[in-house]
């Protein structure tokens, strides 16, 4: 079966002070349709670089990105990105931000209104329809960013440490929300985080990266029918199988941090 998105032999070398620095050794990673894959790793392992290349926002030194088996080309609405710093357009209201991609694609007015309304309802943003981003809390801003990325119905949603800038409580609520969306609507997601707990809770598969230079170290499957699925994150964390997976991943990362 052809994966929804495939990262094939992607590497990245930077030129610095006369020499070259390998940020990323050739990486291979495939994400199947409806699969939620998370990349974890210590800071500096190149996971964000990998994400930017996957999004088409940065060019790889070698390798290519395929969507449905074909070269993905430049950045565009088939691969939308949710950034850590939200990246909402400050001069546009919540509804206008969400409608951005649809308006660029020249979707008919009536359909835009309808799809924006759906997203507002889905993300619990109805009350904030006409608010400007600066009037919203961080959590609400990131909901808008997620809605803006989902409304264009991308082939794959790329999330670059999306909850990294949020406080702990807000983060928990959004993690549960994203987990619920995924279970109900089966988005294809590539997710980057440095939180092991978040990775286990959300993913079907966790990819652990090592650093210096960055490469994929191990892939760990998290069964979709695990006993803790569907619980809140606090509750899930108390299950033995959850703790077991978490510990396994954490050991891999700890080895990387100690190795420096």
């Amino acid at each position, binding site marked *: 079966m052809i994966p929804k998105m495939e990262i094939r032999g992607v590497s990245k070398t930077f030129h610095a002070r006369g020499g070259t620095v390998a940020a990323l050794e050739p990486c291979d990673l495939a994400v199947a349709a409806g699969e939620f894959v998370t990349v974890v790793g210590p800071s500096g392992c190149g996971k964000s670089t990998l994400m930017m290349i996957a*999004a*088409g*926002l940065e060019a790889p030194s070698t390798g290519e990105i395929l969507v449905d088996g074909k070269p993905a080309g*430049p*950045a*565009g*609405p088939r*691969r*939308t*990105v949710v*950034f850590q*710093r939200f*990246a*909402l*357009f*400050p*001069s*546009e*209201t919540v509804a206008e931000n969400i409608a*951005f*991609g649809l308006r*660029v*694609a020249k979707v008919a007015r009536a359909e835009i209104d309808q799809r924006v309304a759906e997203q507002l309802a889905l993300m619990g943003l109805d009350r904030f329809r006409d608010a*400007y981003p*600066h009037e919203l809390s961080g959590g609400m801003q990131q909901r808008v960013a997620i809605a*803006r*990325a989902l409304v*264009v119905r991308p082939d794959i949603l790329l999330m670059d440490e999306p909850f990294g800038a949020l406080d702990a409580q807000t983060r928990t609520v959004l993690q549960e929300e994203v987990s619920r969306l995924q279970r109900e609507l089966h988005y294809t997601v590539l997710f980057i985080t440095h939180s092991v707990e978040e990775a286990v809770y959300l993913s079907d598969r966790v990819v652990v990266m090592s650093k210096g230079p960055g490469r994929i170290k191990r892939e760990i499957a998290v069964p979709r029918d695990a006993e803790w699925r569907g619980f809140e994150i606090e509750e899930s964390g108390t299950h033995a199988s959850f703790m077991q997976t978490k510990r396994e991943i954490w050991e891999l990362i700890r080895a990387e941090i100690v190795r420096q």
Partner: protein
Amino acid sequence: MSDGRTSSLPGGPSGRIALGATTLAALLLAWLVASTSGMVSPRVLPSPLDVALRFASLLADPFSGATLAGHLAASLQRWAIGLACAILLGVPLGVLLAWLPPLRPAIAPVFELLRYIPPFAWVPIAVLWFGASTTTQAVIVFIAAFPACIINTQLAVSGIDPILARAARTLGAGSATTLARVVLPVAAPTIFTGLRIAFSNGWMALVGAELVVGKQGLGFLISQGQINDSAATILVGMTTIGVLGTLIDIVLQRAQRLALPWRTDSVRPAE
């Protein structure tokens, strides 16, 4: 702070207006006392009443070729032409400079050199080229206003978080759409601040240029007042220039607030 508020604006906006009005009234009173008590000769400092009468007569009867309204219209026309050129050229160039960074080192040296030539230093050469015409005055306004337009636009555009352009790209926007829907709206407040500086720089340079050259305009009116030994005429001219400049800035501030409803007060540039 007698009302015990800890706000930095005691009494709020209305309190501020009252304070300002009080100071203005006190100045006016001091002027009245000084000019009517015989302390200062009316030839040196006419009373506010004399100035008001002179104002009325200048409105009704031509002086040095035009009524006060005529001089004012002449000034406003030159100012508007010079400003329009400065904005229409400066804002797009500023965007270009920010959008295409390689252009900057090419243009910067020229700019640095021209920056230290004050607008008035251009008057003689402008007169030589264009005569004592509206064009000459407009050129001086342009020279005074242009740097504020181009510099602030460039700062505004290059100061935008690149992540916004990236977000727009992942949503399918090309360069033109990103510029129109993301970059320019976000840069607008700083560009607008630059325009306000350009408006006031242009206004000041114009009055200065009119003092030196020309046959009409508020600056010319003042210089004619001096030649005719009429302090009242000079004061009418000066007051008109000051009041008009203030009014224009107030209108611009209002326009800025209306045009940019998404701006927070806390991040509005210092004024």
